[in-house]
């Protein structure tokens, strides 16, 4: 048996209302590529944050043993000093600095004055090591995501990395960039660098994993080694239940009238100087769930914002037709007036007002319903809130609970409730189940089914293909702002969708 470079013992981490990690035991052997797989919200990222000291020692219970020493990381610097380096999904690069400056930010060459010559020499050296052939003077912001990823790895190498952690590194990459990255990891392995990789893509796992750990609901389900790895086994462990139990049964869709349509809709972003929505022609029928699939950065959220009238940085051409009527949606107010609602992708950033209570959040979309001559009626507010808390099964001690104290799933239900309060006809759901546990997901899916049964139409944006396959009646695929395919769900397969999503 090889040496264990990392052991994590009985790691338990709780957040208010949730046990994110429950007695997690995990080990990684020296010089292997270890995968951690699990559904969204299973606790993978939390575990890596514990490991890298983002959650300091003491905020969780359990032990981290790295190279046979118990470690108590107080911050990310402690773990970096030991050679544990994490590369997050959101890259920590400075777009306005050059490549070589980026590689050495935080551990500059030289004691008080920076030795720029040496910095540039080393930068070139590490770029060669990751196989990136670009000018080191180039600004990082001008590079694509794939290349930026490699620069992060070069940066890690320059910090004498022993254990490299990559959190869903290929989620935003196209096929060939992903391929390059996987090759690089294998070549780093031969240089003695151990890696942990968090990934959803089982194809990658089968290709390069030496071992893997499956995490579900904050618990380790199993550890598999190379010869035990096969797709069925992983899925069964990841999901822990059959697909029928994840998605509530829904009746086959019977054609209804088209209630929403975009016709040659284009949105040009002045900020990044390109079309984020490129000739979109989608239609939604009454009582239908229409999916929008695509990779990260494909323009799914941009499409939603365009439809919803949130256009601060966009120039728009084309038309939107709601109930056979051409409408001009210049602001979210206009969209709401025409019966469109948008449950946003990032509920904390632009969905909820975390410091306010459930009632204040739910009623904000239609304050006219609970007010008279501009004065609020609090009894009315409480009654409405009470109703949504009950209907959506929001678990809370009182309706006066601040939203920041709710768990992710319940926060998401508040966000849904807030939009149901505006009584929409068309509901856009942008990644409605991101970061919430399986049980809450099921509840959200059940709500979706109830809503379409009552005649609402839903546009479901999701990066999870099972969700698209399990919940939609029809799906559009987009890639780089362009609508590349439309499938009836019975004609669609995950492979077909992926193929169209990676153009």
């Amino acid at each position, binding site marked *: 048996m090889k040496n264990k470079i990392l052991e994590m013992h009985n790691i338990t981490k709780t957040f208010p209302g949730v046990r994110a990690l429950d007695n997690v035991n995990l080990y990684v052997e020296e010089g292997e590529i270890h995968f951690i797989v699990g559904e969204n919200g299973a606790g993978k990222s939390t575990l890596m944050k514990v490991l890298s000291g983002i959650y300091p020692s003491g905020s969780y*219970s359990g032990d981290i043993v790295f190279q046979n020493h118990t470690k108590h990381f107080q911050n990310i610097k402690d773990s970096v000093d030991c050679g544990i380096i994490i590369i997050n999904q959101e890259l920590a690069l400075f777009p306005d600095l050059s490549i070589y400056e980026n590689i050495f930010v935080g551990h500059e060459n030289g004691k008080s004055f920076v030795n720029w010559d040496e910095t540039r020499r080393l930068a070139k050296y590490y770029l060669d090591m990751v196989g990136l052939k670009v000018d080191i003077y180039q600004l990082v912001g001008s590079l694509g995501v794939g290349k930026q990823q490699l620069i992060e790895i070069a940066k890690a190498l320059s910090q004498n990395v022993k254990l490299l952690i990559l959190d869903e590194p290929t989620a935003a990459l196209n096929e060939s960039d992903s391929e390059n990255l996987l090759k690089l990891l294998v070549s780093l392995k031969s240089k003695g660098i151990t890696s942990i990789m968090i990934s959803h893509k089982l194809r990658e796992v089968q290709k390069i994993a030496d071992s893997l750990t499956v995490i579900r609901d904050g618990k380790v389900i199993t550890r598999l080694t190379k010869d035990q790895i096969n797709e069925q086994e992983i899925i069964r462990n990841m999901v822990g239940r059959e697909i029928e139990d994840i998605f509530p049964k829904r009746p086959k869709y019977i054609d209804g009238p088209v209630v929403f349509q975009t016709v040659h809709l284009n949105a040009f972003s002045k900020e990044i100087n390109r079309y984020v929505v490129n000739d979109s022609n989608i239609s939604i029928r009454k009582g239908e769930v229409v999916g929008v699939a695509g990779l990260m950065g494909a323009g799914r959220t941009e499409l939603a914002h365009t439809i919803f009238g949130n256009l601060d940085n966009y120039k728009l051409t084309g038309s939107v037709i709601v109930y056979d009527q051409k409408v001009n949606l210049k602001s979210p107010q206009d969209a709401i007036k025409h019966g469109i609602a948008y449950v946003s992708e990032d509920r904390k950033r632009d*969905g909820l007002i*975390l*410091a306010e209570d459930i009632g204040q959040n739910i009623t904000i979309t239609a304050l006219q319903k609970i*007010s008279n001559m501009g*004065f609020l009626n609090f009894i009315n507010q409480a009654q409405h809130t*009470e109703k949504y808390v009950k209907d959506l099964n929001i678990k809370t001690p009182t*309706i006066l609970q601040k939203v920041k104290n709710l768990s992710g799933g319940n926060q998401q239900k508040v966000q849904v409730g807030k939009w149901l309060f505006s009584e929409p006809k068309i509901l856009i759901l942008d990644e409605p189940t991101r970061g919430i546990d399986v049980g809450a997901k099921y509840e959200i899916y059940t709500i979706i089914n109830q809503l379409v049964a009552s005649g609402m139409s839903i546009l479901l944006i999701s990066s999870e293909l099972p969700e698209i396959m399990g919940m939609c009646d029809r799906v559009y695929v987009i890639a780089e702002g362009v609508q590349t395919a439309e499938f009836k769900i019975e004609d669609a397969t995950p492979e077909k969708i992926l193929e169209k999503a990676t153009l």
Partner: protein
Amino acid sequence: MKKINPILKYVLTLISLFRSNIRDYGMYIALAVIFITFQVMTQGVFLGPINFTNLLNQTAYVAVLAVGMTLVIVTRQIDLSVGYLGAFLGAYVVVAVENQNWPVVIALLVGLLITIAVGFIKGFLIAKIKVPSFVVTLAGMFIFKGFLMNRTNNRTISTSNEFFNKLGIGYLTDNIVGQLNLLTFSIGVVVILFILIFSIQKRIKNTKLNIPVEIPEVFLTKLVFLIVMVLFIAYNLAIYRGISWLLMITVAVVVIYHIFTTQTVLGRRIYAVGGNPEAAELSGINVKAIIIIVFISMGILSLISGVMYASYVQNTSPNHGPFWELYAIAAAYIGGTSANGGVGKVVNAVIGSVVMMSLKNGMALSGVNANIEPIVLGTVLLLAVIFDIYTRNVRTIDLVGVYYANKHHHQELMEAKGNYAQAKTALSNAKKDGKNTLEYEYAVTSAQGIYNRVKEKIRNAKHEDFQGLVR
């Protein structure tokens, strides 16, 4: 288990209330400490009728600014221009009335139009053009200082019009000092009646809506405390000259803004914009319009404040204005307004202004070296914000529950504590013997984990949990 002694229960409940809501009470405690300290230092003059009336009159112009500033800070902006803007508007009205013989109403109306226009321009630059409010209002600060110097022609101009006399140094009724002012005292009684009716009504309403209410003992204690406070204030004012117009206007502003911020749709939207501008925008709120409205409101309050100040000191001068905005900002922060936006009560900002002005007034009155005063003010501001940050994550505690839990889980706690101590000794022994300590370290952390969990359980106990067990 035996039932807890009712007096102990009452005391523990009150302490729990204080500890759980220390953020809300902190400022009142600070104010009480300041009052008592100066009361002692000045041998009873500080809270005496004369100085108490003076203190409130001195506070008025800052309190009015602080109300507006709270909303500005709640929407994540800042306004540095209100000091000189207020002073300029005060000068504008005074010069119009005294030198140009305009009727007071016209002068005030033109002042109002000016300040609305100014507020709109500020708000427009900030919300639409996206110039940082710090820069816009810093520029405003320079510009209005210039306006003030031009308007006063760099001279001090005294006020003589009856309006300014009434507003600045007048009282609701003329009465002889030393006799009880009946009007003032009756107003106090009416306020008490209002408090009684409102609190009881709210309690009934909340009970109906299943919103948790305080236990009766706490409710009554709070009520009695409030009534005593109002009685004290009313009596203290009544035996001097009664209620000044400055105080009257300030109270009116506060009441209007309190209702505005807590009861109206627009108020709700302002706080939503402050709490999360992106979410507010996506919820169909016109964020830009809200920010413009907030700056217009700040402007109107600057006008009121400026005219109040000029009337109070009975002149207008190019030297008015500096530091007003900073007093207002400090008052808002002392009052617990969050720099991150979305949180802040106008009433607390007014209490914050009373804290500031009490310090100024009290130090002057007790003969503290005037050079010390700004140092103390700065320190108090800093302490207030540090306190606010420290108490941000205060968890609620129910000491009655803890009392029961300590008895109920005593055995378990002692056991866990013992195991933890044992594991620690085992580890240190192993270290001494030079053995591999890894296993022992696991034992220590897991025992510590169990011990901590028991302690947490006791810490978080609620007295309702023990209802069945107590006889």
